[in-house]
C-alpha cells in the first residue's frame, strides 16, 4: 500500500469523523507526514491557501463561558481579526450551564466542547465498528510521561493519539483490572526518581493515587475529543487547553501557537503552595501542571507571552528563545481623560481569587483608613468559579478587621471604565499576573495605579505608578495613602500612564502583532 500524500490526508478529509476514523495511517506514518510537511514548509514558508485561514483556539475555563482577563483578550482578538475563521474549542467543567457569555462574531463558531468531570461518555459513532482493543498500560504510560521529572514527550503523544483513535476504549482501558496495578507501578517509579532539581518526592496514599488516576483519565478523555480541520492551532494556556492541540498537531502536522497570560505552571505552583492540601496532593497537582506545560512548550511552534516577565519564565522553563515573541495586550484608550473626582475612593477591578490576594487588600484598606480617615475602598468583581469559599473567607476577614466601614465588595460591573473613572486611585494586590487589563484600563482613564510587583506589572507601570512588593501591607498602604494625600502627584502619574498607554499598549499594536504572527504560522501574509 502506498503512503498517502499529505494533501490527501489534510485537505480532502472534510469531516471530523474522517479525521478520527480508526482506519487512519499509523502513528509513525503520520509523524513522518508531519515531518515532511514541516520540511516543505521550510522550503516555501509562505503558501497562500485558496480559502480563508482557519484557526482552532482552545480555551480552558474562560472564553466564551466565563468573564475575566483571558476571555476579554480572546474576545478582542477574535473580534479584531475578522480575516481569520475562528474555531473555538472550550474545555470546561461538565455542568448544565452551557450558555456562552460572549456573543461570537460571524467569523467565529464554537466547534465542540470538552467537558471534564462529567458523567457523559464519548459520543458513539454508530457507523463505525466497535473497537474492542484494550490497552491497560494507558494510565501507566500517561503517568510516566506526564508526571516524571523529565517525562517523555513521545510517550505522551503516543498515549494521547491512541485515545483519539479509540475514544470508546478509553473508559474500558481505565476500568480494567490490570490498569490500576500498572498505574501504581508507574507512579512508584516516578516517586522513586532522583533528580537534583526535584527534591525527594513525598509519600502518597491510595486515595491520592486514585484521585490522580481519575485526573489522568480525564486527560485521556480530553485527548479523545475530535478536533475539526484547521490551519493553525492557537492554545490560550499551557495546561489542559493544550491536550486536543497536541493530538491534532501530531496527527496532521498543524502548527501551534501558545499564548500565556499568566505562566500556567507558575500559577499552579502558587495555588498549590497556598492551598491547605496534603503534601501528596500539592506534589501531584504541581507535577501535573508542569507535565502539561512542558508538553505545550515542546509542541508550540511559537510562544507569545503577553509580557517580558512571562517570557523570562518561559526561557527559564526551557522554551527555545527563538520561539518566543512577546505581544503585549492592548486597549482601545479614549482620546482624552477627565481629572480624578477627589472623592478619596480607591477601586480594584478583578475576580475574587487567591491569586488576587484580596486579604492583603483588606489589611491595606484598614491601614490606609487609619491614616486617611475619609478613604473608601471598592472591590468590583465576582468570585472565580470554585473560589466561593475564598470569597466568604474574605468577607469574614473584612468583618474581623472591622473593615466594613471603609471596604465594600461591589459584585460584577458592566461598566469597568466608569468604575475606574469614578476613583482617585486604582489598586491591585495580586501575587501573580501577566499583563493585567485592569491596569491598562486605569491608565487609559489617567488614574494613578498602585500595583504589586508581579509578572508584567513593573514593566507596564514603569514611571507611571507605585509598585510595592506583593504581600507587603505597609508598603502598599503607604503607596495608596501617598497618592490620596498628594493629588498633584496622583494626577501627574495618571497623565503619564495615559500617554504611556497611547504610546505602547494600543489595541492596534496588539492586533497587528497577532495578525502578523498568526498569518505567518497559518502560511499566509496578512496586510496590517
Amino acid at each position, binding site marked *: 500500500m502506498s503512503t498517502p500524500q499529505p494533501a490527501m490526508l489534510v485537505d480532502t478529509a472534510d469531516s471530523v469523523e474522517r479525521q478520527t476514523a480508526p482506519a487512519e495511517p499509523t502513528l509513525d506514518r503520520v509523524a513522518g507526514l508531519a515531518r515532511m510537511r514541516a520540511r516543505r514548509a521550510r522550503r516555501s514558508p509562505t503558501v497562500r491557501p485558496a480559502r480563508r485561514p482557519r484557526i482552532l483556539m482552545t480555551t480552558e475555563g474562560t472564553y466564551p463561558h466565563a468573564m475575566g482577563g483571558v476571555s476579554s483578550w480572546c474576545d478582542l482578538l477574535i473580534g479584531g481579526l475578522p480575516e481569520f475563521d475562528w474555531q473555538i474549542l472550550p474545555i470546561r467543567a461538565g455542568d448544565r450551564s452551557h450558555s456562552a457569555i460572549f456573543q461570537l462574531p460571524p467569523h467565529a463558531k464554537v466547534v465542540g466542547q470538552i467537558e471534564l468531570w462529567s458523567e457523559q461518555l464519548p459520543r458513539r459513532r454508530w457507523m463505525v465498528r466497535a473497537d474492542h482493543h484494550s490497552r491497560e498500560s494507558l494510565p501507566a504510560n500517561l503517568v510516566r510521561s506526564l508526571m516524571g521529572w523529565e517525562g517523555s514527550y513521545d510517550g505522551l503523544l503516543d498515549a494521547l493519539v491512541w485515545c483519539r483513535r479509540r475514544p470508546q476504549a478509553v473508559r474500558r482501558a481505565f476500568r480494567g483490572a490490570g490498569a490500576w496495578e500498572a498505574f*501504581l507501578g508507574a507512579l512508584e517509579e516516578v516517586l522513586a526518581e532522583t533528580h537534583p532539581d526535584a*527534591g525527594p518526592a513525598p509519600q*502518597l496514599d491510595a*486515595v491520592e493515587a486514585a484521585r490522580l488516576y481519575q485526573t489522568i483519565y480525564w486527560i485521556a478523555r480530553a485527548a479523545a475529543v475530535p478536533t475539526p480541520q484547521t490551519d493553525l492551532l492557537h492554545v490560550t494556556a499551557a495546561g489542559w487547553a493544550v491536550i486536543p492541540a497536541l493530538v491534532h498537531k501530531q496527527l496532521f502536522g498543524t502548527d501551534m501557537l501558545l499564548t500565556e497570560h499568566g505562566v500556567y505552571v507558575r500559577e499552579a505552583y*502558587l495555588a498549590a503552595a497556598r492551598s491547605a*492540601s496534603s503534601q501528596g496532593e*500539592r506534589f501531584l497537582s504541581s507535577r501535573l501542571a508542569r507535565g502539561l506545560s512542558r508538553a505545550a512548550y515542546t509542541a508550540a511552534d511559537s510562544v507569545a507571552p503577553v509580557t517580558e516577565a512571562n517570557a523570562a*519564565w518561559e526561557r527559564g522553563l526551557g522554551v527555545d528563545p527563538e520561539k518566543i515573541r512577546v505581544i503585549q495586550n492592548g486597549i482601545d484608550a479614549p482620546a482624552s481623560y477627565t481629572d480624578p473626582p477627589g472623592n478619596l475612593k480607591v477601586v480594584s477591578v478583578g475576580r475574587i481569587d487567591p491569586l488576587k490576594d484580596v486579604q492583603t487588600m483588606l489589611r491595606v484598606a484598614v491601614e490606609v483608613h487609619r491614616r486617611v480617615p475619609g478613604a473608601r475602598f471598592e472591590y468590583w468583581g465576582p468570585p472565580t468559579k470554585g473560589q466561593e469559599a475564598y470569597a466568604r473567607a474574605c468577607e469574614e476577614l473584612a468583618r474581623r478587621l472591622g473593615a466594613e466601614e471603609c471596604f465594600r465588595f461591589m459584585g460584577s460591573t458592566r461598566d469597568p471604565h466608569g468604575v475606574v473613572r469614578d476613583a482617585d486611585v486604582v489598586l491591585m494586590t495580586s501575587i501573580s499576573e501577566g499583563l493585567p487589563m485592569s491596569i491598562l484600563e486605569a491608565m487609559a482613564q489617567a488614574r494613578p495605579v498602585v500595583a504589586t510587583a508581579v509578572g508584567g506589572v513593573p514593566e507596564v507601570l514603569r514611571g507611571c505608578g507605585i509598585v510595592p512588593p506583593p504581600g507587603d501591607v505597609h508598603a502598599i498602604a503607604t503607596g495608596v495613602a501617598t497618592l490620596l494625600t498628594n493629588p498633584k502627584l496622583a494626577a501627574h502619574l495618571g497623565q503619564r500612564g495615559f500617554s504611556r498607554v497611547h504610546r505602547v499598549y494600543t489595541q492596534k499594536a496588539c492586533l497587528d502583532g497577532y495578525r502578523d504572527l498568526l498569518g505567518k504560522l497559518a502560511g499566509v501574509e496578512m496586510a496590517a
Partner: protein
Amino acid sequence: MAGGLSQMDSTGHQYAAGVIEARLGRGAQDVLEAAVVLEAWGGVRAGRALSLGSRVVPPKPPRWTPGRLTTEEPGRRDGILSEAIALIMAILAVASWAGPLSRQVGTSALEHAIVIGLPLTLALQWAIRSRYLSRRSGLACLAHDRLALGAVAVLGIEGPLMLLHPYGPLAGMFVAIWVGGTVLARRGWALPYGLLLVAAVVGLEARLPAYPLLEVLTGVVLVAGVVAVRTGEEHSNEPAGRVGRALWAGAIGAALGGLLVGDPSLGWGVHGAFPALALLPSVLGSFWGGYHLWKFYDAVPRGLQGVTLTQANQRNRQGAAMRIFVGALLRLVGMTVVLSGAVILISQWTAGTNRVSLFVGFGCVALVTLLVNVLESLAYARWALFAAVASIATELIMSNLVLTHAPVPGTALIAGTLVGILVALPPLLRLLVRPGRVLATSLWIQ
C-alpha cells in the same frame, strides 16, 4: 523589590531558603516551587529565582502526612425513619387494597394490572433514580427535564396502558401512584404519601367505587409530585446522569419487577393480601441494607486513607468495601428472617400467608436486588442486567416448563433468584475484595 534583590546578593541561597521556609513553613518541593515563592513573596526576579537551582531544595523528604479527604455523599439521607415508616404504610396499604379491589374489579383484572404495573414501576423507579434522584440536586435535575418526562409518561406509558382494557387503566394508575411515591419520598414527603395510601384503604373498605377512588388518588399523587419537583431544590448546574445508563438501569428494574410477577404460583391479586404482605419483611430488610450501602461512597475512600501505594491494590477481606457490603448483606438477611417469622406468627389474624417458601422467595429477590444494585452503582450495568435476566429466564423456564404444577408456591422464584445470586456474587466479591481498585476504577470512574 530592591530590598529583596540586595539581600539575595549578600547572603545568596541561605536567604532564599529562609524566605521559602518563612512563607511555606517547610522547605521547597523542587526548584520550581522555590522560584515561584521567591518571586511572588521574596521580590526576586524570575530568571534569578530559577537560577538558584537545587541549592534551595532540601535533601530530605518531608515528614509524611496522609491526604485530606473531601468526599461528598451523592444525595440526601435525612428523614430516614419517616421514609421507613412510610414504606411500611405503603406496603400494608397496597396489601390491603388487594381484597376490596379484586372484589370490585375482578381478580383477573387486578392480577393483570399488577403483572404489568409492577415491572413497569420498578423500571421507571430505577431509571429515574439513576438519572436524577441519586444526585445531590436530583429534584432540580428532574425539574429541568420535566417537559420531556411528561411527554414520555403520557405518550409512552400511560397512553398505551389506557388502551389495554380492562386492566390497563388500573395498571397505569398503579404505576403513577408508585412512581409518584418515589419522587415524594425524595422530597421528604414520604409520610403524607403513606397517609394518602391508607386513606385509600379506608375508602375501599367503606365500599367506595374503586376506579374513581384510585383516579382521585392518582391525581393527588401526580399533583403532589409536580409540586414536589417544582418546590424541591433551587436551580442547580449539576447535570443529570447519562440517558444510556438510565436506560440500562430501567431494564434492570424491569427484569427485577418481572422476577416478582413471573411465578404464577404466587397468585398476585388472587389470594388476597398474602403476596403483598409477604413482601414486607424483605422490602424492609432491603431498605435497611440499602441504607447501609449508602456509606460506600464515603467509607471506601476513608478506609484507604493512609494506605501506602504498595498496598493500594492488595486484597483485603476486612477492607472498607467488603465491610460495608457484608454489613448490608447481614442487615438484609437478618431483618428479613426476623420479620418473616413475625408475619408468619400473626398470619392467622391477617388473612396473610404462612407459606415459608414465599418469604424465602421474596428474601432471595431482595438479595439479588441488592447485588444487582451494587453492580449497577459501580457502573457494571451490563453484568447487573445479565444477572437479573438470568434470574427471570430461569424463573420462567422453571414455572412454564419444569414446575408447571409446583406443590410449593414460589419454587420457580427461588430457583430464578438463586441463579441471579450465583451470577452476580462472584464478580462482585472479586472486585470488592480490592478496595483500592474499587475506588480508582469503579467509584471514581463511572
